[in-house]
């Protein structure tokens, strides 16, 4: 019996070791462990074994069954692994992928959103105002004299009722202060209009980002720190900024901001205007509100603005501003 067991073990391990596929594996399993398999048949022989020998032969038989079972398992795993490997190997992975195409956000929107996210990190919230504005909001309240050239019909679109299409988003500064007591800290992305002939560098409608911070003790150090941080967030820490004294009717002191950065080709570009809110603007707001919460002796503030179109053009090397509104999918899908 003992000999028989060892012979069968040797035979079984040899047969199982030679298994090549699922079919021969199954055949081996049936041959040795099946209902009428060899191991089963040998177990039947236990009936003829002397009683005192039964535990020892029982153990031997059990060992035999276990070693056959584990040999079968080893082969089964090997076959499965081989099949998995060949399944992956048979794929032509150079075939193109197939999935429904997604769309893209307009490059101006992407830029605007980056700017918005950055200002929100700095604690600004968004404000809004209408595109169709009154002369008061667009000019008078912003300390622009009645005979200022920007107000004439050559440069600004008017409606028959005397209202106009805002020529800058600075109108939102006025809207906000009219309706909200200080402190205010806002940005306003939006459209503005100028009566320009459309060509490669001009559109009659363009996109601006406006900002305003009014509170007690706001100083010139605030716009400097805020805009340095912003433009370095936008273009990288190596960005150089230059605040160049300038003139705007609604801020004093006023600056234009020139920027030089690798993303814009390492040359100085005039990108933004900023300054401390002119006391005359606060006085206009006080008159309109009928209170003194914006008394320039109590609060100070800064404002800034910049155009997004030219910035987007320079960042993506877009040669013609009209491409931003032609909506050619071959253009849009690049962003």
């Amino acid at each position, binding site marked *: 019996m003992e000999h028989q067991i060892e012979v069968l073990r040797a035979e079984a391990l040899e047969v199982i070791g030679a298994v090549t596929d699922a079919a021969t594996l199954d055949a081996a399993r049936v041959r040795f462990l099946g209902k009428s398999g060899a191991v089963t048949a040998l177990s039947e022989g236990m009936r003829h074994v002397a009683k005192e020998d039964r535990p020892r032969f029982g153990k031997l038989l059990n060992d035999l069954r276990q070693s056959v079972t584990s040999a079968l398992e080893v082969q089964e795993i090997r076959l499965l692994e081989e099949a998995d490997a060949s399944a992956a190997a048979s794929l032509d992975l150079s*075939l*193109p992928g*197939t999935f*429904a*195409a*997604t*769309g*893209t*956000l*307009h490059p*101006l*929107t992407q830029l605007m*959103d980056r700017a918005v996210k950055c200002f929100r990190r*700095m*604690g*600004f*919230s*968004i*404000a*809004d105002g*209408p*595109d*169709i504005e009154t002369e008061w909001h667009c000019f008078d309240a912003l300390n622009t*004299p009645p*005979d200022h050239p920007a107000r*004439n*019909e050559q440069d600004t*679109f*008017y*409606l028959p009722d005397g209202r106009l*299409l805002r020529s800058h988003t600075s109108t939102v500064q006025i809207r906000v202060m009219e309706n909200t007591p200080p402190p205010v*800290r806002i940005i306003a992305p939006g459209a503005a*209009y100028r*009566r*320009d002939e459309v060509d490669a560098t001009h559109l*009659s*409608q363009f996109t601006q980002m406006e900002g305003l*911070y009014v509170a007690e003790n706001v*100083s*010139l*150090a*605030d716009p*400097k*720190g805020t805009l*340095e*941080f912003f433009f370095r967030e936008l273009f990288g820490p190596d960005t150089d900024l230059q605040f*160049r*004294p*300038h*003139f705007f009717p609604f801020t*004093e*002191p006023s*600056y*234009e901001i020139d920027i030089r950065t690798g993303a814009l080709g390492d040359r100085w570009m005039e990108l933004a205007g900023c300054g401390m809110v002119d*006391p005359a603007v606060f006085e206009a707001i006080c008159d309109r509100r009928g209170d003194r919460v914006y008394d320039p002796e109590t609060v*100070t503030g800064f404002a800034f603005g910049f155009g997004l179109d030219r910035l987007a053009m320079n960042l993506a090397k877009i040669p013609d501003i009209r491409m931003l*509104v032609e*909506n*050619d*999918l071959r253009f849009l899908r690049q962003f």
Partner: protein
Amino acid sequence: MKVSLNWLRDFVDCQLPASELEALFRRAGLEVASVEERGAAFDKVVVAQVLESAQHPNADRLSVCKVDDGSGTPRQIVCGAKNYKVGDKVPLALPGAVLPGDFKIKTGKLRGVESEGMMCSAKELKLAEDADGLLILPADAVVGSPIADQFPTDVLFELEITPNRPDWLSHLGVAREISVFTGLPLATPGIPAPAMAPAGPAVSIEADECPYYTLRRIRGVKVGPSPQWLADRLISIGLRPVNNVVDVTNYVLFELGQPLHAFDAAKIEGALHIRRAAEGEIFRALDGKDYTLGEDYLVVADDRRPVALAGVMGGEDSGVSATTTDILLESAVFEPSFVRRASRTLGLISDSSYRFERGVDPEMVASASARAAELIVQVAGGVADEIVLEAGTHWARTEIPLRHARVRSLLSVELSDQEIEEALSGIGLEKSCGGGDSTWSVPGFRHELSREVDLIEEISRAIGIERIPSLTAGFFSPSSEPDAAYDFVMASRHALVGMGFSEARTSTLVSVAEAAWFGPAVELKNPFGDDQSRLRTSLLPGLLAALKRNLDLGAPSVRLFECGRIFSAAGEESRITMVATGALSASDWRGGTRRNWDIFDLKGAVAEFADLSDGDFVPLPNPPLPFGAALEVFKNGIRIGILGTLHPAEARRLDAAADIVSAEFHTGAWMRAWDAAGAMKPLPKFPGSTRDIALIAPLGLAYGDVRAAVLAQNEPLLESVSLFDLFTDPAGKNLPADRKSLAISLTFRAGERTLTTEEVNATTDRLKAGLKERLGVDFRE
């Protein structure tokens, strides 16, 4: 305005190179639009005269010349040009000269013949962009003299001057700024303060818009061409010389910033009156045109007629002409807004009006008159009256108090009193009283300074932005309604992008035709052209134009959306609009059948985009143009938009080969309909059961009616109804041609137990019976 560096050096001895001067200007707030270096400053380039010219023995295109370089010994020069003749004077670069491009001249052989230098073209001396042949010099050029004498060097700065700095509209003003930022002394021109006397009856100011007027008589002038130095200076800044008297007035304008006018004294009848024009009064300006004036115009008139439109332009028949011998020289101050209005409404813009409308230096009026008189006598002869006649009132200087604490807090810099005071005295202000705070008297050339904040700006400019710290702190602003709207629209944009739509941006300004579909459009009073004369009433026309452009470019499929504003008499609203046409999916190597976008694809897309179900779409029986078929879209019972397929005629107009589908949403209504993150619905604990039923219905019966008829039976166990097959057979083989088969899946569930087969079947049977009764439909088993 153009300024000449040579001219600036009359006032300040500035030897900075052009690039550093440009940086100084920018730091001061003077924008430099361009810098132009002129002249020929070369060592060893001299005037030479061609003495002989002979053919080069070894080269057809070259000649060998003998030239006189002033040394007494003729030089041999090989030359390739053809445009000269013997006797001409030309620039000659001697050995050792270095021309632009680091081109070193030396003696050498050209095709075997020695050349002791090079005769130059204008291009080689960088005097012109392009040049054919040698630069031929005037016959009176002195042989052997440096070429720089013929072409003196200068640097011309084109400056863009902001309206707050009228003092920069003159060479003196710009030189003053150089002096402030370099510390170099300003050499004010030696102008004798003239003796002044009341004009009496000779000048009568009859309008408040002329605060001050002066007049000086110069007798016995001889009008003629200006001397070269005067003409050259005017030409260098882009002016055309006229005659010596007029040129002097222009010269003084650009030198000191004060516009002057010279009348021919013989043509002035009686006294000069500065008065408002009479209604309908005609003025013939020196451009030869007649202008009809009114009471809003200020004129200088003699006893008979206007002789100048004050500050803007002189009259045709009272100005200086070749026969003039006595002149009356006007130097005055006119109200800026009056000059501006006259100049704008009449379209008469002059160097004079440009300065008056920004405000001239009231302290310069008499000095400028004196300077001009001096120059006129110098270049045109004659004798100036000793006395300058004046009328009106002298300008009183403004006194501005300054709180030093305010300076420090607004600039965030701990400036000392001394620094503050040095900054202001540096720009020419005079401290009239001091202590901790100070009071400042403003000279005429900075008359626009009137408030404390104006002084603080000057201090910030003087100390430089580098002194200002960078602060990164501030009030944390709470989020606003526009913040919520921004986030909503941005989330919508991202969702649409995920669905394959690309974002477009179209113009707010549209044509009459494009604005016609959605009610009356707001109109512009002064549009730039007819195609931009209205404000859009919908984003759809712009998107359809973009769609057509892409189709014309051969795009097989177009999916676009836009988020933007629309306009009507009622106000402005935000819209989200999408359009699609062409292939639903791109072709790929798996093959399979492909379809074009149709209204059901868009309805499905919108259902996903807006989280809607079947019942939120309500067909519109009479769809508005440009739609041929359309549905209204509701969310939580609020109408949020419309979706549809374009009328076939509109699609044909756009040359579309397939359906064009579009949806437009009212962003505001949609936001109102949005139920913000409510509590979750519990997940079902027990399995549901599904039964499929197949109806045979008349072709005209809408699925919506079937669905409604199922739901109307209010079966409590019915969880959902969905259509999974629609079949018609026009040939009538498997189904009568006037029937359709609708296969509907019904899902049943109870919240607290597993349903039995019996109750599910019974419910299904009741529903079928109900459908049969309500709609008269049959069922396929």
